[in-house]
């Protein structure tokens, strides 16, 4: 069964927004409502993230170091729902100062006036592998790729890249993809022969033509990230698009799942400051701690994610380092969140229509 803990393990859009928003979010928001009454310049800062073991690990490493160094209190809340943020900003009832966000959404939120511009005189952007954005700074990355059950599909019997994932003759089996265009379009193009480094701007028509070919073989268009693993272990599907963090967590639980670290789609996770935060400067300083190499490494050593700064790699444990998608590898695609911020809505409408027909 899926536990709340592993539901919240990787920052993957919808399920996180939904899962964290519901229960924990309500509690977090209630707890967070009180401290904003304080008028003091330096905190306490309310920091909202996706909850679960990821936020716990950040709290123990990055946030703890910030609190020890600056003496500013940080109050964690969970469920960084942008709809909630919009309501907070619109009503002038700001509960959050620092927020963990999805890149493309952060860009939209920034344009909608919900986020402060990043103060890169406070936040150090040197050595970033993932480009910093106007309204948010990347602090770690997570890779998406092919998951399978090694007991059913041993070496040589499972696809190892997107062209093979699309090759249903050589690798027969039920496919599982997400019910949204994000990442699907990228893998469809790579399956069609586009190099990972030449994906953007995405050729949407070509991507849909490629998706048409795989569509009959996709038995599940998966809504929630936890299902990418549970459908695999329940033998409802054979090959799935999932995230390395989820597979590693399932492996730690003793499940028979494996992951292909090549040809991954790597997406950045970002942190931002809410528009009108009364603790803006302190909040920017907290963001700068999220970008400190040694703190990123300490966090990634717990969770297995990739740090956003290349200089953080030197501090990674060897076994964590070995499982990182190689950002320099020409087969690794890095999600262009700006493209998605620009085109996400139109493409999603087209994708949902395409799914219905």
């Amino acid at each position, binding site marked *: 069964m899926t536990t709340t803990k592993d539901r919240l393990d990787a920052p993957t859009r919808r399920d996180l927004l939904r899962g964290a928003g519901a229960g924990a979010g309500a509690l977090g928001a209630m707890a967070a409502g009180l401290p904003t009454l304080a008028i003091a310049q330096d905190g306490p800062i309310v920091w909202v993230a996706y909850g679960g073991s990821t936020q716990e690990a950040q709290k123990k490493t990055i946030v703890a170091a910030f609190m020890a160094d600056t003496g500013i209190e940080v109050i964690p809340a969970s469920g960084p729902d942008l709809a909630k943020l919009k309501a907070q900003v619109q009503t002038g009832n700001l509960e959050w100062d620092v927020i963990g966000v999805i890149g493309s959404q952060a860009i939209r939120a920034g344009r909608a006036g919900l986020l402060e511009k990043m103060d890169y005189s406070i936040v150090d952007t040197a050595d970033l592998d993932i480009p910093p954005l106007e309204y948010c700074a990347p602090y770690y990355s997570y890779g998406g790729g092919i998951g399978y059950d090694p007991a059913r599909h041993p070496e040589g019997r499972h696809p190892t890249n997107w062209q093979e994932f699309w090759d249903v003759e050589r690798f027969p089996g039920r496919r599982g993809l997400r019910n949204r265009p994000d990442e699907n379009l990228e893998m469809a193009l790579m399956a069609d022969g586009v190099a990972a480094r030449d994906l953007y701007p995405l050729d949407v028509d070509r991507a849909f033509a490629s998706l048409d070919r795989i569509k009959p073989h996709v038995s599940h268009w998966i809504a929630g990230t936890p299902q990418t693993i549970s459908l695999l272990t*329940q033998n*409802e599907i054979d090959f799935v698009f999932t995230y390395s963090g989820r597979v590693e967590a399932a492996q730690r639980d003793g499940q028979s799942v494996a992951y292909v670290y090549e040809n991954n789609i790597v997406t950045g996770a970002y942190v931002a400051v809410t528009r009108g935060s009364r603790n803006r400067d302190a909040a920017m300083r907290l963001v700068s701690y999220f970008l400190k190499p040694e703190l990123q490494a300490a966090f990634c050593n717990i969770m297995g994610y990739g740090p956003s700064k290349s200089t953080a790699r030197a501090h990674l444990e060897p076994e964590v380092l070995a499982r990182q998608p190689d950002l320099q590898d020409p087969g690794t695609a890095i999600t262009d969140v700006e493209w998605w911020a620009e085109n*996400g*809505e139109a493409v999603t409408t087209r994708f*949902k*229509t395409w799914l219905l027909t």
Partner: protein
Amino acid sequence: MRFIAPALVLLVAAFLLPLLYVVYLSFGGSSPSLEKYAAIATEPLYRQVLLNSVYISVVSTGLTLLLGYPIAYHLEAQPPRRRTVLMILVLMPFWTSILVKSFAFTVILGKSGIINSFLQWATGMEGHLPMLFNRFGVVVGMTHFLLPFMVFTVLASLLTQGPELRRAANVMGATRLTIFWRIIFPLSLPGVMAGILICMIMSMAMFITPALLGGRGDLMISNLVEFHVRDTLDWEMASALAVCLLAITGVFCIGIARVRGGQLFGEEG
């Protein structure tokens, strides 16, 4: 009037005003336009999804009535103490979150779930019935969720019927079937209509069940509302969709009210 004033104030403040704001937003807010409604009218996605919602809601509500009425009828015939115990059993699904229930259906309806495993064992055949991640799965999940609402509304109306009419009919030689169809069922119709109304309203707005148990074609209107509220932050579009949903449900309510007030009871009134 004096007694309903507090409730009225609460409804106006907490329901009517936000609702009016949603309508205002749907027409573009401070820069009025029909853009969002035009998009709903022209974009095939929205039409298809609206049709989906109506279809799934009607089927689920119909099935809920077929399953729920006999349960309510049976409950009504029980002595009060026993009925209380049985009512608690009917209420039991409310104790679990809809999310957990939806996941639990995987265990029952899945490819290697209880039903399919049994069928394979019983028939000795390899195949399986696809009962999950399709329309069937959505309808089962929704019916399961709606059932208590139907049972309790129908039961409430059955319990208000006095035993006298049935006794009189019995004395006059009516069979049990005649008593049911000529007396019990027509008198329970207000409850049935109320039940249908509640179930339709709730199922039209459902979004977790279709997302978890449905297939790629089982998108419902609330899934799109959620998408626009949380992902695109396009609240005008979300509001326009919500207004459409409200309009459809409203038309349905008026329809039911007319049936109730009109022909069904016309001969007596």
